[in-house]
């Protein structure tokens, strides 16, 4: 009944949300939504470090890379772009030195050209007294941005275009009127008439040339818009099977895309990591792992005991090229009396955030956020730190959950930002494994290079892309149960 009453408004809202997501998606949605910068925290050999890659938004374009050493000092930090499909060994240029940032110890910056669209890694090489080490940070290189021309630039170009237009017409007129006259002779009426005729023809022809140029520009722009990165479209439905709800996701992956990015490959052993977030209150979240449903590009997952309502969907997938992307949709979930078991690693949580700092996550455990009172600022690199406290009040290391110490999800209240984070940052571990094994010539440990799972402090490196109200969920496993804490974060505008 509630569902029926809710339906008309819900449908409108759902369309609005879908429209909002569709609007946002082309601009920002590859491997996360609205959060295009890549953040990695881990180790390069003996050097703990944090790497931030700010993608250019156009391809070919220049990515800015910031490396912060978190431990040992280094004598040299070098950066190298490694495209997925380049010949192994010789396909990458020599590394570029990252320059130390004055006034900040251990901070280095550099920039790298990303020349072709698709999957890249930034190889960070650190040398120093402790030896040398390197790490691969996967980056999705895609065109996501449409640049509007500023008024100033429009004015400059219009003035110059006008100068060239009237200059050309006047030169043609003068050439016709007097270029062949003996020096000193004044053009007679006939020659002046020729000049006028030439002027009329030139006005038209040069205008036609300008028109042709504009059409060429429009064609280039249309092709660019067509090739702008867009995540694969999802069509999501919920059906009820024997009183249990089953989520079905169909996506229209085409052959061209598959050729560019490759087929799907598992990340943390799963082909898809799906997050459902109930709106508008953001009071329920499910982290599911749909599996292929027999048909190509159709995935299914039984729904756990989450309340009915409208949910935002974010599906993280990784392709064989290492290209990771987040597909988005929204769906209305009906009420149900029972739930079917899905993937053993599925987890879900309902309820609003508790008052910090003591966030009870069940079984007597608490997930406490460090620095809960501190101000968070947008566009500023930071580590969101949590401690898992056992029923006796002692800090304990969580048990690995899908190979990681913890998982976190951050979303802005309007849905314009979504990110799936680990202590190793925003990257897909499967992509990292791919690049590391390519570079080392053997199957690499997917979790090499990031902090070990036994680290008792759960630290999530992140940079909020914009100010606003955010909700964060942190998931860690203790006593065999995945425990989820919810937090409200207020992010202030950047002062930079």
């Amino acid at each position, binding site marked *: 009944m509630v569902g029926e009453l809710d339906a008309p408004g819900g449908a409108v809202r759902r369309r609005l949300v879908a429209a909002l997501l569709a609007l946002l998606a082309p601009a920002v949605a590859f491997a996360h939504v609205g959060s295009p910068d890549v953040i990695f925290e881990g180790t390069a050999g003996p050097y703990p470090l944090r790497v931030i890659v700010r993608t*250019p938004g*156009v*391809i*070919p*374009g220049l990515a800015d890379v910031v490396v912060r050493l978190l431990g040992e000092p280094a004598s040299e930090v070098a950066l*190298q*772009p*490694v*495209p997925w*499909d*380049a*010949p192994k060994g*010789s*396909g*990458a*240029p*020599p590394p*570029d030195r990252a320059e130390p940032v004055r006034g900040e110890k251990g901070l280095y910056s550099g920039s790298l*050209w990303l*020349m*072709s669209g698709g999957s*890249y890694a930034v190889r960070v090489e650190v040398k120093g007294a402790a030896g040398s080490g390197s790490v691969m940070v996967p980056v999705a290189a895609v*065109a996501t941005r*449409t*640049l509007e*021309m500023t008024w100033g*630039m429009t004015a*400059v*170009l219009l003035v*110059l*275009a006008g*100068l*060239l237009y009237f*200059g*050309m017409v*006047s*030169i043609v007129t*003068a*050439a016709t*009127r*007097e*270029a*062949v*006259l*003996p*020096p*000193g*002779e*004044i053009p007679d009426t006939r020659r002046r008439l020729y000049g006028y005729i030439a002027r009329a023809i030139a006005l038209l022809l040069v205008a036609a040339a300008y028109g042709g*140029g504009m059409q*060429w*520009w429009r064609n*280039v*722009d249309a092709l*660019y818009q067509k090739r702008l990165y867009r995540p694969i479209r999802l069509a999501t439905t919920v059906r009820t099977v024997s009183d249990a709800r089953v989520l079905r996701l169909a996506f229209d992956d085409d052959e061209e895309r598959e050729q560019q990015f490759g087929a799907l490959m598992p990340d943390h052993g799963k082909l898809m990591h799906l997050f459902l977030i109930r709106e508008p209150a953001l009071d329920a979240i499910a982290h599911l792992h749909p599996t292929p449903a027999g048909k190509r590009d159709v995935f299914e997952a039984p729904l756990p005991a989450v309340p009915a309502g409208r949910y935002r969907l974010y599906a993280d997938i990784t392709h064989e090229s290492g290209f990771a992307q987040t597909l988005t949709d929204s769906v209305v979930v009906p009420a149900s009396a029972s739930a079917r078991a899905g993937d053993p690693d599925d987890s879900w949580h309902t309820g609003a955030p508790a008052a910090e700092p003591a966030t009870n996550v069940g079984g007597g455990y608490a997930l406490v956020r460090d620095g809960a009172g501190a101000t968070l600022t947008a566009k500023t690199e930071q580590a969101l730190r949590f401690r898992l406290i056992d029923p006796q009040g002692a800090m304990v290391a969580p048990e690995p959950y899908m190979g990681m110490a913890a998982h976190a999800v951050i979303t802005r209240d309007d849905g314009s930002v979504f990110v799936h984070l680990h202590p190793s940052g925003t990257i897909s571990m499967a992509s990292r494994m791919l690049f590391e094994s390519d570079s080392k010539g053997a199957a690499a440990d997917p979790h090499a290079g990031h902090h070990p799972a036994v680290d008792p402090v759960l630290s999530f490196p992140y940079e909020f892309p914009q100010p606003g109200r955010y909700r964060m969920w942190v998931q860690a496993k203790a006593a065999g149960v995945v425990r989820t804490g919810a937090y409200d974060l207020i992010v202030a505008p950047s002062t930079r």
Partner: protein
Amino acid sequence: MTTVTVSGVEVESRSTSTVPWIIPLAAVATTSIVVGSMWDISWHRTIGRDTFWTPAHLAIYLGGILAGLSGSWLILRATFAQAADAAAAVRVWGFRGPLGAWIALWGATAMLTSAPFDDWWHNAYGLDVKILSPPHAVLGLGMIAIQLGMMVLLLSYQNRGTVGGSRVFARAFTYAVGALVLMLSTILMEEVLPNNQHRAIFYKTTGCVFPLFLVAAARASSLRWPATGAAAVYTAISLLMTWILPLFPGRPLLAPIYIPVDHMVPPPFPLLLIVPAVAIDWLMQRVRGRDWLLSLMLGAAFVWLFFVVQFWLSEFMLTPASEHWFFAGRQWGYQTRPTPWLHKFWWVVIDGVTPRSLLVATLMAAASARVGLWWGNWMRRVVR
């Protein structure tokens, strides 16, 4: 005004004595622009990454600055200083100056316009990987205008010169035409690669572009073999670039690198334009007063002679034997995927050369030659 009473001879004697600097300046400006462009393309095929200050860019700026400043100087001098210069000038927006100076100044302005446009273009659509884009077209038009301006300027001195002086200017004019032909073939580099030389469109494109300039130059010049001379200049500069550039080491600084080049990648071996150019001069020396018939003969001579030599040369250029310092065949930039496709003729199934397509190319070349004759007739009379 006193200038209207100045006779042509008087103006000439002053002009040639006071403006000899225009010859080396025109040579440096035109050479600098075309050499800079070829160097820049090689840079992008070898190293990839560049800055505002690469030597190739500096060479292009030098050409633009020389042309812009000398054009402005000639205009200001004719407008404000010398009555004799004012007499041999055309009037634009209240100023007076030689027509060539105006064209060169327009070219420099176009080059200047392309700078912010190109910068914005790279920010909006990414760094371009093709030679032809709208801002590059503006830059290319600017560079061509500078070369045309220098041509017309030299021609105006030739046309009103004494016998000895005019010959120097005629030779300089021939050089400028050669540099312009090289500029055009550089802009068309992707279209005229050996892999495209079995396509009909190749003979249509070259038939449209080159007869126009070679025939116009031949008609306007007072020399006996101007088209041959221009084609020789084109061939010589192009060969020098083909031979000198690979002597310099260079390696890619951008990924992905599909071909790990270790020296500057040379431009393709020059087109054998010299063969039809000899025929153009030969025909123009013999067929006089019948320009329509002459155009048809020029068109046919250009396409068929060019076809015979270029078609077979391209066969050779795709073989490993062409990988030699002299021919510099099968040289590709680092960003080219090394597939067998690189050693094949492209699109021959849908656009291969046929007798019919050569006939169409002949008609296009004849039309190009006819326009060239009209243009040449006009240029012969340009004295300002």
